């Protein structure tokens, strides 16, 4: 039982990270419409909120949070990522969120120390 608990503390759990991302986006952006003057502040706030919640998890991990906000006007957007790490302990979670006027893509990568 102890081994099981220890391994939960040192692995990347996608569900809990996914919840952190969704809560951060809803809180910061919510139903706001895309505004060029505010997007800078939104991207900063979203990544900051995510990082604060992640550090509260108190796990021995380094985190990288990446946020993309794109206005909805018919343009195509494709994103990809690849990682060279330890498959047993490290992981990532990507959430795609949208409202009427913009797409938001947030990726979190967690690397065990």
């Amino acid at each position: 039982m102890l081994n099981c608990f220890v391994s939960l503390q040192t692995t990347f759990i996608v569900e809990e990270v996914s919840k952190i991302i969704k809560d951060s986006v809803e809180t910061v952006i919510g139903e706001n419409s895309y505004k060029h003057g505010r997007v800078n502040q939104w991207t900063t706030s979203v990544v900051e909120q995510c990082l604060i919640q992640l550090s509260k998890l108190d796990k021995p991990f380094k985190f990288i949070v990446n946020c993309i906000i794109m206005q909805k006007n018919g343009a195509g957007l494709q994103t990809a990522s690849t990682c060279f790490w330890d498959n047993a302990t490290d992981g990532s979670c990507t959430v795609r969120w949208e409202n009427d006027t913009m797409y938001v893509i947030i990726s979190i990568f967690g690397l065990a120390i």
Partner: protein
Amino acid sequence: MEEYQNGSEVGVGAGSLLWFGIESVLGGDDYSQTHVNKWTAAIVERCLTQLVKINKPYKYIVTCSVMQKTGAGLHTANSCYWDTSMDGSCTVRWENRTMYCVVSVFAVCIA
């Protein structure tokens, strides 16, 4: 090419390495919805392969975004919770007539 570096450990060559990775895949092409999936995968793979060849004790994360030029606004941001003395990142912004490409590499030291 626009390049943004953070942290000295990533190395002076990272920017050019990423730029050549993008240029070798996208150079001369116009945005194509049928091919873009293949392009982003090829770019991240190529960049990662070159980074691993440097043979330093690092874990790497490479991300790539390709966006069609239609006048839409695009903002990206990233934030990292790591060891600022050993870890670092590099972001390169590339463009041609029909698309933008932003590639970032994050290098995390293996203690």
